């Protein structure tokens, strides 16, 4: 019973915490304080609900409890002659009874949530802090869950969050939407954080498990929430499309003994058609809003090319190569260039791809990037240059931090050695 009640509290928390923190942050003007008040309410729920059962309107209960704590806090601070006085007036003026949280205008909650998103991804914060704060404040994850997802000690996550909240307070970051001229850039940084979370789940950079579907689901959920908050922004739909389509393959990416199965070797029957349909619909929304050539929409369009091909050999590689051309122009990066090389190799032959790869050999950003030798090895093998291919696979294996991937690369090196 006690455990059931605790799980029920956790479920309510997952559903309500973002709105709760956002609503409180608007009242107290500080995300850190809002989060602590919300945590206090959570502790109270954990103490009381196992006895009393989950209240009829759990969101309103949490909000009411948190507001009472806020008033206590303000009174205490007033006694100590500290700040928050102006806050006190506002809060005291409000009814002490739990407000009808559910009846609060949806738009208002949406605005608060959006403010919370932008605050959690504020540029004064480090990327790591943005990720931790976004998962914690928007995703409703506990420090333990975040630590498990990123394979770092719980204390590290807690410290990151404490520091991030302090940074926001010290920098006097207001709980507001960014001013219009900054909006596009700030939104891009929010999308980047969500995609980073997704990628950490989709292609874990470290550890024995190279996929953490839970983290992908968290990112996808965040993306879908964002799409609801800023439905007119094409790139939000582009990002959601990209994540939906990539997620559609997660079942097929893992072989029977847990090894990674590459895209072209995947059993396409195991792709999740529901997620593909959702992804294609999201891509359509991005395009309908004039965003066909945004960086996420382009990547989603590439993913869609794969999703539409019933068999690997049906893939429209020429279109993919063209989309990579557009992406390389819009957001030039060595990684995009490497991907373009793969697409060009598939569309126009391994020699054409190798030419692009070779132009990247001196790229310092790719110096320790295992995919460069891995791709080069693949193209060399296709050209029958097995000796060189083997050396590249071995180099790639020595560079990856991911165990299953290392085994796959070693296998390919051995196969090249046999033929060399």
């Amino acid at each position, binding site marked *: 019973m006690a455990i059931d009640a605790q799980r029920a509290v956790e479920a309510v928390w*997952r*559903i309500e915490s973002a709105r709760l923190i956002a609503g409180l942050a608007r009242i107290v003007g500080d995300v850190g304080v809002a989060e602590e008040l919300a945590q206090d309410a959570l502790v109270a729920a954990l103490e009381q609900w196992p006895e009393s059962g*989950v209240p009829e309107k759990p969101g309103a209960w949490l909000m009411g409890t948190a507001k009472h704590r806020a008033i206590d806090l303000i009174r205490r601070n007033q006694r100590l002659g500290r700040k928050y006085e102006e806050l006190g007036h506002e809060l005291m003026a409000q009814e002490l009874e739990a407000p009808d949280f559910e009846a609060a205008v*949806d738009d208002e909650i949406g605005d608060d949530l959006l403010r919370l998103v932008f605050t959690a991804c504020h540029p004064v914060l480090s990327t790591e802090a943005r990720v931790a704060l976004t998962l914690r404040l928007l995703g409703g994850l506990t420090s333990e869950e975040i630590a498990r997802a990123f394979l770092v000690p719980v204390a590290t996550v807690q410290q990151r969050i404490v520091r991030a909240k302090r940074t926001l307070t010290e920098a006097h970051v207001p709980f507001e939407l960014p001013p219009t001229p900054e909006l596009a850039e700030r939104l891009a940084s929010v999308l980047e954080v969500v995609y980073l979370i997704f990628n950490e789940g989709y292609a874990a950079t470290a550890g024995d498990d190279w996929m953490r579907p839970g983290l992908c689901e968290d990112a*996808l959920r965040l993306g879908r*929430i964002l799409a*609801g908050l800023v439905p007119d922004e094409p790139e939000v739909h582009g990002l959601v499309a990209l994540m939906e389509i990539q997620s559609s393959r997660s079942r097929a990416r893992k072989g*029977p003994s847990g090894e990674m199965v590459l895209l072209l*070797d995947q059993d396409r029957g195991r792709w999740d058609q*529901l997620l593909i349909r959702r992804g294609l619909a999201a891509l359509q929304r991005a395009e309908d809003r004039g965003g066909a050539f945004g960086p996420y929409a382009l990547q989603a369009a590439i993913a869609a090319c794969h999703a539409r091909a019933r068999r690997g050999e049906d893939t429209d590689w020429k279109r993919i190569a063209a989309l990579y051309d557009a992406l390389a122009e819009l957001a030039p990066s060595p990684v995009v260039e490497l991907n373009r090389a793969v697409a060009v190799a598939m569309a126009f032959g391994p020699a054409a791809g190798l030419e692009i790869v070779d132009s990247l050999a001196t790229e310092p950003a790719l110096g320790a990037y295992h995919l460069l030798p891995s791709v080069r090895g693949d193209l060399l093998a296709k050209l029958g240059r097995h000796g060189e291919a083997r050396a590249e696979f071995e180099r790639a294996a020595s560079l990856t931090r991911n165990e299953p991937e290392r085994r796959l690369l070693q296998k390919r090196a051995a196969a090249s050695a046999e033929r060399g």
Partner: protein
Amino acid sequence: MRFLILVPGNEQSEAGVLPDEKIFIEMNRYNEELVNAGVMLAAHGLHPTSKGAKVKFSGGKRTIIDGPFTEAKELIAGFWLIEVKSKEEAIEWVKRAPFDGGVEIEIRQVQEAEDLGDALPEEVRLAEQRMSAQMAAQRQQRK
């Protein structure tokens, strides 16, 4: 994890009568909430069973039975498919739905391939391995 939320039918839904405007608006609002929270994967209402049919299997024979179906417990009027972290979360979401009048909403977890795991018959697992090997061989030939 995914859950299928099944909404039972009743005389009204079987008669093809749409719910009144108030319920419609409430349901729409609820759906929006599910979408905005990022948990909704799909949702559909179903036509009355009079537009459906059953196929009965016995002894190699297939018999078609046209709707409407008579047994009340067989009536399903609609469903949601949601993606959440736990059964408790699914329950919490369903508790927020605007139903009344003693209606019972069924919550069922969707099986994933991993859930089958060891339960998968040996033949099926071997067949899968054979298929993988066959596909790998075909790839080698293409190279």
